[in-house]
């Protein structure tokens, strides 16, 4: 495995405590300098972040005017940021929508705070400050000057703690709401102590409290603050609603486009820098890419190949960068039945397949082998040297293991997968040829995605499967895939390792982020040593490109960037 690459260096960077502290010191000095020369003086006395013990400070606070635009001589206040997506927006009710529509919600609604999944810091937004009184009690002070949009029936009134209580109870109780398990399982009480004070009490210490309030699920943040009278007047917020965010919905055509206009009454008078933010739905990937190249949108949103990216790199109008993606494909093994109930067989699979085949053939070399977590979750993933034994190919040893397990001549295997998702299909086809080298005669049973998910994967009705993951910005969902209770429906692999389950439960209650990471590291070590039933192939590279005329945009911050509102347009 090639260690001398960007991701290896990136992952190694966060290991050294001396380097972390040094970086923190430099970044802190930079922040101090920005505070001196930048504007946004009203917010100087705000808490910068909560849940500290962070490896490095975030370069800019969420939703608070920083010096980004005002320090740039080419910045133009105003203008339109044009975005697009290939994902169909079903609706834009933040408590129901789980996909691309959350990008619109992030601009329209207010949130208590924004959680930066890169460094695990929480940045108050609608909340002015947050005090963690104990491991289970949080006091949020609501900013007195946060108002809902001046749109009927809310008409610009102030946001209060009662609105927060109502919003979270709605999110918890809506029949169609998803990803609300925090409010259903962990929250004990939510109270409006007074109009400016919201108290949240959890049943047990829960390390992902701040993430649940302000972290992105890979598409956006769901715990939005809504107005009761708006919900009652509209019936539902599927076609838009009144929020307290920096933008107001001007036009929303479901499945087509959204146009948002600047909120002149946003609590930070210096934000947003833009006058307008638009989102267009373009279902075809090539059309989406061409729309970017021809100047109709400002941020590239198609899933592109290395070849497409090379062409973008030749264009001086674009800022181009690579980062580890949050999605990947996996080979899942049912460990309750032969042959995968035998860890020797699982080990044989792990070391018998050549990850490079997947990296080269699916991603044209633009990917890195991975262990338990995608490299995009770099804060939590084990360093490359620790996962190396599990991603190194040794076909001879694999065959010996199979023979020892009673399969000297291999065995027949049916792999369930879907032909609707190219990523899955590509991996599945390569997997068949890789298994053949071990004497395993694998055949694919391909069905459409609906049948595959509901009849096979979610029911755990398979011996082996190849499937792909939605992007995840935090470990909350991915780690549960190794828990005996699984994600929502039980363990798809019928996996029950008490030590792994206990470590997953333990890390969920560890409030110190560094201590938590150590537990997560240990969980990964134990799971890998047990040849975990979900073999993750590799983390692909995500190719990012945006126009040079776009300033204040940091794609490495992912969902956190969406709640910073720092984008601006530069003079062409």
């Amino acid at each position: 495995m090639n260690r001398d690459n960007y991701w290896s260096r990136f992952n190694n960077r966060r290991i050294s405590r001396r380097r972390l502290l040094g970086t923190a010191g430099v970044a802190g000095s930079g922040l101090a300098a920005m505070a001196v020369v930048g504007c946004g003086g009203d917010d100087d006395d705000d808490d910068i972040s909560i849940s500290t013990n962070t490896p490095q400070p975030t370069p800019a606070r969420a939703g608070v005017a920083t010096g980004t635009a005002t320090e740039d001589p080419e910045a133009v206040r105003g203008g339109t940021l044009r975005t697009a997506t290939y994902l169909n927006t079903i609706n834009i009710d933040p408590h129901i929508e789980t996909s691309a529509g959350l990008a619109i919600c992030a601009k329209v609604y207010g949130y208590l705070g924004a959680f930066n999944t890169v460094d695990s810091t929480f940045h108050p937004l609608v909340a002015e400050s947050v005090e963690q009184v104990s491991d289970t009690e949080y006091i949020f002070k609501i900013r007195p000057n946060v108002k809902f949009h001046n749109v009927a029936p809310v008409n610009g009134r102030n946001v209060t703690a009662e609105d927060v209580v109502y919003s979270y109870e709605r999110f918890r109780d809506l029949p169609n709401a998803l990803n609300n398990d925090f409010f259903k399982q962990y929250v004990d009480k939510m109270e409006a102590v007074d109009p400016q004070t919201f108290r949240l009490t959890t049943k047990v210490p829960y390390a992902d409290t701040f993430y649940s309030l302000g972290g992105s699920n890979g598409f956006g943040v769901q715990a939005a603050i809504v107005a009761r009278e708006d919900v009652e007047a509209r019936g539902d917020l599927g076609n838009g609603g009144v929020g307290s965010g920096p933008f107001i919905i001007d036009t929303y055509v479901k499945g087509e486009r959204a146009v948002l206009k600047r909120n002149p009454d946003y609590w930070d008078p210096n934000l947003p820098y833009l006058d307008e933010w638009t989102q267009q739905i373009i279902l075809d990937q090539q059309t989406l890419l061409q729309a970017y190249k021809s100047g109709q949108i400002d941020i590239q949103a198609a899933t592109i190949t290395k070849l497409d990216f090379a062409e973008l790199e030749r264009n001086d109008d674009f800022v181009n960068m690579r980062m580890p993606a949050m999605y990947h494909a996996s080979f899942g093994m049912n460990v309750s039945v032969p042959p995968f109930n035998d860890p020797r067989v699982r080990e044989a699979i792990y070391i018998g397949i050549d990850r490079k085949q997947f990296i080269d053939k699916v991603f044209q070399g633009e990917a890195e082998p991975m262990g338990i977590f995608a490299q995009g979750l770099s804060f939590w993933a084990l360093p490359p040297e620790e996962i190396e034994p599990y991603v190194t190919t040794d076909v001879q040893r694999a065959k010996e293991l199979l023979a020892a397990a009673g399969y000297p001549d291999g065995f027949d295997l049916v792999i369930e997968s879907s032909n609707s998702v190219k990523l899955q299909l590509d991996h599945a086809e390569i997997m068949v040829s890789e298994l053949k080298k071990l004497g395993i005669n694998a055949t694919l049973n391909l069905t459409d995605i609906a049948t595959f998910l509901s009849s096979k994967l979610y029911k755990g009705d398979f011996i082996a499967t190849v499937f792909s993951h939605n992007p995840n910005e935090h470990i909350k969902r991915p780690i549960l895939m190794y828990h005996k209770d699984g994600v929502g429906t039980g363990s798809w692999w019928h996996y029950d390792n008490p030590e792994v389950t206990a470590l997953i439960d333990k890390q969920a209650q560890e409030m110190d982020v560094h201590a938590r990471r150590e537990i997560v590291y240990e969980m990964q070590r134990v799971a890998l040593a047990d040849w975990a039933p979900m073999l993750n192939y590799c983390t692909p590279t995500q190719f990012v490109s945006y126009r040079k005329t776009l300033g204040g945009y940091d794609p490495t911050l992912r969902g956190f960037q969406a709640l910073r509102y720092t984008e601006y347009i530069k003079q062409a």
Partner: protein
Amino acid sequence: MRTYAIRRLLLMVPVIIIVTIAVAGLMRIVPGDPATIALGQNATEEDRERFREAYHLNDPFHVQYLRWWGDVFKGDLGQSVVQRTNVTEELKDRLPSTIELLILSGIFTALIGIPFGVISAVKQNTPLDYLIRSFSIFGLSIPNFWLGTLLLLLPAIWWDYLPPLSDVSFFDDPLGNLEKYWMPAATLATGSSATVMRLMRSSVVEILRDDYIRTARAKGLAERTVILRHVLKNALIPVVTVMGLQLATLVGGSIIIEQIFNIPGVGLFLINSIVARDYPSIQGLVLFLAVTFMLINLLVDLSYGFLDPRIRYS
């Protein structure tokens, strides 16, 4: 003709019932749970059960089917379990885009297929005829999704030109609307215009050999008059049939075109509903498409009487 039309309309009823029962039944036999698709992997079994109860998915088939018909008679085609919207409203939003696409495709088909078919027939066995026939073979052979992708990509690559991505109403901005729709309509019309062209050619060739055409020429009529006044009308009879049937076929072909050119039409809604096992949407759309198809067929049949007075309906 009136009796014929009424009889045809009445015959539509059993056909619609059979079609909707078949589609509703088949969709429920096909593996795949709408609740699972709609709610995703993080939903618990309780979430899914609650979802199924909310949308009556646990009721017996005949109860679901009859309830759906009850809603249809009230003008409600059902509630999309995936889009979480009303199917009727969704159709109303999407139908104008699909109709415009089909109308423009039909116009392109007629404008290209009919004149070039006539020219090819009149200039039979000349280089011009061979050229036109080559283009018709090309049009029949080429997959429209490939052509559409090329039409979209090549101008974007060469001239940085892309048709407008946002949908705009013809009545608000006719030029902007046509700028968006002309390319997908032309793409969709490629195959159908090739078919019409070939059919028109063979029809005209056959009619040119008829005695009354020889008589018309013998009377000294100009060739243009012979073609336009005497040949064309009779040659159009089979062509009108095919064009009417093609209109229905175009709906299926429009699905991919809608995706490539970003048109929020009915075709894309249908395919997404099938993938997601959105039973109410599928049933509503199939009902709509079945009625539309049968009405188009009826109109085509009735148009014979206008085109050929010899045709009487028993």
